[in-house]
């Protein structure tokens, strides 16, 4: 019960790989969307906001099906990615990462948008009058002041993507070693009579992973909180 079997290692490492790649790949898009929604005023903003939030409210199986429609072999986006970037998603771990990224996106955008909206633009104006360009103002004022929210968005997204099930199984299918992440492995084990111990072990693993993510986010929040306490004292 103490050490992991090779299959369990495979599931764990695949889960971590899928989630990490998903979050890192979607981070620039999430930040750009958060910035647009926090700082720009443009026609159709409500629509963009709604589209970003769609995966949060849709049944995940519908999101997975929509991904199939968009990224399937003969679908426009799928063809674009395979022809120009050599990237295919169907039945591959990249597909699981894509599904995880789409499901994590709304949470990441929300956290980042809130933290960007909380940054006092008057401080940015002050930086400009002191000789800082837009870019330098962003790097030295906006980004540090929004950093705790951006980190929180990252951790939230990571936690969400590790637990992703419905869109992944619909879009990328449940292939051991390729797309079978932790939740999918638990689901498979549940289908097989007599594998209760396997289910328990995977479930414990999943709990440990979640607790780890929570502790990490708590630590990040406390660290930025301590920063605030230090400002006050």
């Amino acid at each position, binding site marked *: 019960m103490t050490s992991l079997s090779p299959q369990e290692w495979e599931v764990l490492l695949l889960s971590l790989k899928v989630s990490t790649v998903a979050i890192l790949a979607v981070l620039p898009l999430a930040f750009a969307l958060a910035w647009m929604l926090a700082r720009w005023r443009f026609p159709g903003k409500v629509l963009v906001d709604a589209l970003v939030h769609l995966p949060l409210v849709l049944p995940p199986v519908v999101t997975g099906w929509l991904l199939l429609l968009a990224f399937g072999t003969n679908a426009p986006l799928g063809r674009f990615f395979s022809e120009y970037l050599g990237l295919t998603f169907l039945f591959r771990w990249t597909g699981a990462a894509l599904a995880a990224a789409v499901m994590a996106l709304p949470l990441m955008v929300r956290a980042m948008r809130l933290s960007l909206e909380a940054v*006092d633009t*008057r*401080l940015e*104006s*002050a*930086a*400009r*009058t*002191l*000789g*800082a*360009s837009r870019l*330098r103002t962003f790097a*030295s*004022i906006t980004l*540090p*002041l929004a950093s705790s929210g951006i980190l929180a968005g990252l951790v939230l997204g990571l936690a969400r993507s590790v637990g992703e099930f419905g869109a992944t199984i619909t879009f990328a299918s449940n292939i051991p070693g390729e797309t079978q992440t932790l939740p999918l492995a638990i689901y498979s084990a549940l289908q097989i009579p007599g594998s209760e111990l396997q289910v328990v072990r995977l479930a414990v693993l999943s709990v440990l992973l979640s607790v780890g993510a929570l502790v990490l986010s708590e630590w990040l929040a406390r660290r930025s909180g301590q*920063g605030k306490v*230090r*400002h*006050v*004292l």
Partner: protein
Amino acid sequence: MSFDVDVTIRRGSSRLSYTFKTGKGLTALFGPSGAGKTSLLDAIAGLVRPLSGRIAVSGTVLFDKAERINLHPEQRRCGYVFQDLRLFPHKSVRANLEFGWKLAAYHERWLSFETALDFLGIGHLLDRMPATLSGGEAQRVAIGRALLSGPRFLLLDEPLASVDAERRGEILRLIERVRDELALPILYVSHDRPEVERLADRIIPVERVEG
């Protein structure tokens, strides 16, 4: 000619027009709160784009609608001391003071770091965070940050507003020294008549605009 201003600015639903030219020294814009004095300073600093007109300081055109000139705030080299100070909360006093100083070109730094610390009496505050400063200390750091950025002119917006009564005299004397020793054109906004009469070489009254 120091400040040469002839602009129309939108403020909420109303339009404010300012026309004045100033000589050397400290010019006070004197008028009640809500008359749009801060909007004018923002326009001179490049933070607000005027609807029309022209702004020049010491012969350099900062904004000219007709000539399509509109310098970025970072190109105007103005030392703007905001009414709400706007010290960077995540940076130490030292980092706040160094912010504009590091961005200024070598030949633009007419004030050395040590001189500024002595002049303002803030040398002992360098490692503090802005939130831990008293009103008077924060005000002096804000003035220091503006002076160290190598400005060609100063905009002071109600610099006594955030200072308690006992410290006002200290900041007033400091502003007098800035006026007398640094030979920078200064535009000073206030609604306090004794303060303005004590400091200003010239007073420009600003009326409240309704609507």
